[in-house]
């Protein structure tokens, strides 16, 4: 509840609480004076509730936040600079580690940009496999968000339930690519390998379980007294202000604007699938929570449709100038050997140009800007990270609210410092 408005209806518990220790008594006891002093406090960078190495310079009046300045750069590893020194193929693992919970999305944005520049077609099967992995990553990212956010509010068991479901997803990633995180599965032109036998069956099992588990989280949290008190009505921000601040993703959808790049400008065959976009009404923390929880169900639907409709065909482009030939060809074909050699040593060259490729990541519009100068290394790789832009909204959201609301809002903002700092 913001301190400037009275709550609509108080539960019996709250009414009892307020009758025991009303604020007016405290002011009376301290001699009728309330402090007007502003206190500037450092929140982080080492702090369990800042969701990463985020430093917030908070100006407080009592417990009310008057101003907030985020200071970032503690995890800046020069990803964009490193990417300029590497062949296009080798940039993929670098760029994956940017927004470290939505790694497939980073790779997708980058590979999509390079594919546009080099005019490489991605086969249909690869597009469907990409969608499956992207939506699995979206669910995994939302599970971590849910677990850590309600952990900040005190619900410690939900954190472990979410991680339990995420284990199933990471097992699926390990099955398809060999690694749980930062898998290098997406390559320019498609995916690195076809899914193994048993993947589809395991994925269907997961798709049967996930909605039931999401129902369980909803059953525990949706009408929970603490969640309602902490999230309902706290730190709302209207869609117009969010748009002027460049905020996209679940934060904007919670405020009522149904902008989603998967529907607006479909990429990678997203228009083949039927799914809904969860939209909130008020734009407070509870709407942000509800929108992300609902997105998990929609992602499950998309994966199911993609799996049912998975077409036969190549899993990567047949253009040997861009994609490695299959290993068995190296023993018999001279051209395959030469292509393999050229690709591994120098890498493929991309015609000069600039491309900005936006996709919808779990946090909003994630885009990759690639500038190529004709050589085998990119001249500029810039990732437009949604967390970096969304962070600007934090001070607007929390002005005039309590520290406790600041904690809840930072959690609902879903910032990933790897993406913010790059």
């Amino acid at each position, binding site marked *: 509840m913001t301190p400037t408005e009275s709550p609509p209806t108080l539960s019996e518990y709250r009414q009892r609480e307020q009758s025991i220790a009303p604020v007016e008594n405290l002011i009376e006891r301290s001699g009728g004076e309330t402090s007007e002093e502003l206190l500037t406090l450092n929140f982080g960078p080492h702090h369990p509730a800042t969701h990463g190495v985020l430093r917030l310079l908070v100006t407080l009046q009592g417990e009310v936040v008057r101003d907030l300045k985020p200071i*970032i*750069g503690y995890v*800046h590893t*020069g990803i*964009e*600079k*490193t990417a*300029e*020194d590497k062949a296009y193929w080798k940039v993929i693992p670098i760029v994956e580690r940017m927004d470290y919970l939505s790694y497939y999305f980073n790779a997708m944005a980058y590979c999509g940009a390079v594919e*546009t*520049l080099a*005019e490489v077609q991605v086969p249909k099967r690869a597009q469907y496999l990409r969608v499956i992995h992207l939506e699995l990553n979206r669910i995994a990212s939302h599970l971590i968000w849910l677990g850590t956010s309600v952990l900040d509010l005190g619900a410690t068991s939900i954190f472990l339930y979410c991680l339990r479901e995420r284990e199933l997803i990471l097992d699926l990633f390990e099955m398809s690519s060999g690694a749980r995180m930062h898998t290098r599965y997406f390559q320019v032109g498609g995916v690195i390998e076809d899914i193994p036998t048993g993947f589809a069956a395991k994925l269907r099992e997961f798709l049967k379980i996930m909605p039931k588990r999401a129902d369980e989280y909803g059953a525990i949290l949706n009408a929970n007294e603490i969640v309602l008190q902490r999230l309902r009505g706290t730190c709302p921000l209207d869609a117009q202000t969010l*748009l*002027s*601040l*460049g*905020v*996209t993703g679940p934060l904007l959808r919670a405020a009522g*604007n149904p*902008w989603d790049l998967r529907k*607006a*400008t479909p990429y990678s065959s997203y228009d083949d699938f039927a799914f809904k976009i969860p939209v909130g009404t008020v734009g407070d923390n509870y709407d942000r929570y509800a929108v992300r929880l609902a997105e998990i169900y929609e992602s499950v639907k998309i994966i199911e449709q993609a799996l049912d409709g998975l077409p036969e065909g190549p899993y990567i482009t047949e253009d040997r100038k861009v994609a490695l030939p299959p290993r068995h060809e190296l023993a018999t074909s001279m051209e395959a050997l030469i292509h393999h050699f050229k690709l591994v040593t120098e890498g493929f060259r991309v015609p000069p*140009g*600039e*491309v*900005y490729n*936006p996709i919808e990541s779990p946090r909003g*519009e994630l*885009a990759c*800007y690639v*500038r190529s100068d004709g050589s085998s290394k990119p*001249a*500029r790789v*810039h990732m*437009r990270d949604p967390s*970096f*832009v969304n*962070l*600007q909204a934090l001070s607007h959201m929390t002005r005039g609210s309590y520290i406790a609301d600041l904690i809840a809002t930072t959690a609902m903002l879903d910032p990933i410092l790897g993406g913010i*700092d*790059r």
Partner: protein
Amino acid sequence: MPDATGLELLARELGDAAIETVYFRERATIVVDPARIRAVLQTLRGKGYAFMASLHGVDHYPEEPRLGVIYELLDMSAVDRIAVKVRVPLEAPRVESVTADWPTADHQEREVYDMFGVVFEGHPDLRRILMPEDYEGHPQRRDFPIGGEPVIFTRDEAKWLEARE
């Protein structure tokens, strides 16, 4: 993106503020005069491009003018994107800040300043955002070396401090 014809019509409307248009891979870019960037963005906002998706920098070394700033605009109702680009030389890397009209430009302009050294005049709080406050140099420039900082090991620390004096 507006198609090629739409892009040309748009550039004609902007008049002499538009220096060049680029229609590449079905994406539209207008290169404009750095002195008129704020007015150009307001005109485009009037045309419906009311959302600034990204503000980022690029170094065109060795071509001149070297430093480029790109403004990615999005029209949500018409689902249309357009990129506006300005290019400034290294000797005079000044561009007017658009933060007053587009609040999203705040941190993004700070990042371009930090990484490229482009000074945004009129920015409310132009200081480094990713690098430490006392850092020297602008890392993302093409002539800035990768691994441009010496790594001091504890065994060499005394020697290194001595060499600094």
